[in-house]
């Protein structure tokens, strides 16, 4: 129950913030805003029932975001470099890496985020392995996945 | 210093024109879909630039909406269409598809 209320509060604040941003700070029609936020929170609670996986730690988030932005910059640069090379140095392959994160949201986040990271793109998520397409087989793929998995584990506060 | 937004928008549009080559050439339907997705994300960029060029910030709402919904047609393509109406080789691939069981 407590978990539920905490989740409810967190999401309410979050959605209210989003509303506030979208409405550009205007609070003229606040009753509608209240209904809107309530509706979104309700939908959200229904689709993503509060549970362990959805409890996100703030510090973990900050760390994750920092890592993510840095990595995605790198990813962008890598692609730009490859694309603008006279002869793109591509050595693509589909690799499988073992999964250490628990089932559910963490794995999804991992797979999704990998798509934005340098050189990797999730292709198939299986029980134990993640198949990935990589641009360059020579890159340290496993390390990267490990790092990301660590960040995600911290974000959700889960054991690996 | 002249404002950078409009030239940049034009530049992005030229990018799109180039991407249209991919959309025309294919070869697979997915490649065309990729071009369409590129149009989506570049379109969002052009929209926000236009918002500043025209001082019409409602266009940011348009960009937001587009960003929010951009995924849907891509997903629909991947999950519902691709391979069903393509070349015969892909059709055979569909036949061995075991994902039907997924539902």
């Amino acid at each position, binding site marked *: 129950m407590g978990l539920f209320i905490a989740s409810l509060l967190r*999401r309410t604040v979050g959605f209210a913030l989003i*509303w506030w941003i*979208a*409405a550009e700070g205007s609070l003229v029609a606040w009753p*509608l*805003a209240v*209904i809107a936020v309530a509706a*979104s929170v309700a*939908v*959200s609670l229904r*689709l993503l029932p509060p549970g362990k996986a959805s409890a996100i730690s703030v510090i973990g988030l900050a760390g994750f975001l920092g890592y993510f932005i840095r990595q995605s910059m790198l990813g962008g640069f890598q692609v730009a470099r490859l694309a603008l090379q006279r002869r793109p140095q591509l050595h693509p392959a589909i690799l499988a890496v073992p999964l250490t994160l628990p089932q559910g949201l963490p794995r*999804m986040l991992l*797979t999704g985020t990998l798509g934005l990271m340098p050189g990797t793109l999730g292709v198939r*998520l299986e029980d134990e392995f993640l198949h990935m397409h990589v641009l360059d087989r020579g890159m340290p793929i496993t390390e990267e996945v490990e790092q990301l998995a660590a960040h995600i584990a911290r974000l959700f506060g889960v054991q690996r | 210093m002249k404002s950078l937004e*409009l030239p940049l*928008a*034009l530049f992005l*549009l*030229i990018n*799109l*024109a180039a991407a*249209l080559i991919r*959309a*025309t050439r*294919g070869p697979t339907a997915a490649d*065309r*879909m990729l*071009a*369409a997705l590129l*149009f*989506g994300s570049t*379109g969002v960029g*052009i*929209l926000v630039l236009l*918002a500043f060029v025209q001082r019409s910030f*409602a*266009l940011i*709402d*348009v960009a937001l*909406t*587009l960003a*929010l*919904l*951009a*995924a*849907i*047609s891509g*997903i*629909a*393509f*991947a*999950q*519902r*269409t691709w391979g*069903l*109406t*393509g070349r015969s080789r892909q059709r055979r691939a569909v036949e061995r598809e075991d*994902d039907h069981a*997924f*539902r």
Partner: protein
Amino acid sequence: MTTALAFEALLALLLLWSAWQTLATPQMDRAVIMFIVFGLLLTLVWSRLQAPDIALAEAALGAGLTGTLLLDALTAFRQPNRSAKHGRVLAAFRRFPALLALLLLAAALLTSLTRLPLPAVDLPAAVAGQLGSSGVSHPVTAVLLNFRGYDTLLEVAVLLLALTGILAVGLPAERPLLSLNQLVPTLARSAVPLMVLAAFYLLWAGAHRPGGAFQAAAVLAAAAVLLNLSQLQSRWLPTQHWIRLVVGAGLLLFVGIAAALLAGGGLLRFPPGQAGLLILLIESGLTVSLAVNLAAFYLLRTSSSGQWAGQEDSHE
């Protein structure tokens, strides 16, 4: 200035090229993708034409609903679908007069654009002049729901009518997804609440800036489509009566208010004091019912024992 012109000219060229590709590309799935591209470009055009309301509608519909509707429809046609090849030369001759007529029409239209008279009626000024008593501060919404609210009333009826027509045509049976991955449901779970919020936002925005019931409804419908694509929302069956009730309720609310305002001297004659509230009421009702209506275009399917479900699978 020249940059602007170059931008517009290039946009125009891209638009025409994508339109041409839509029609000329031999395979249907490509055509549909080109049409999606066309929709995106059109959104840019509308933005450039200072018509963000239309751009919003185009974006919401093109990205969310029309595209998926078309892609979904393609799944019904099992065969790859090139246009008929037979008698191309003959067909060209047969079509020659039509093509000539079309070219003439195009030439005439373009010529006519160069010699237009100045409009005798200044409608934008009239709109601006009466905006104060319309109940909303966004001129497009004022036109849409107050000055020309009657058009909108009929337009809602058209949408409901199309749904009725589709029910009359009969619904295809649901086909399983070709493939499903686990990421999409996660996306849906997190994005759909945002879409709901966005819909409310657009509804709220309509009163004083671009936005409105229809755009909001399109976003909601897109959310429903997304839910379905992630298997979180099964298809709707025609036996689910609430769908029809909700769709009908929006129109009935609109008609009801329109008729009630007759007492004040005219159909849809909003008293200036309450106009804002009444318009918001109508728009809220419409948002829900239009959303269900639009979503039903995509979601309504028959159960496998339905009207013509069996026939569809007989072609292999």
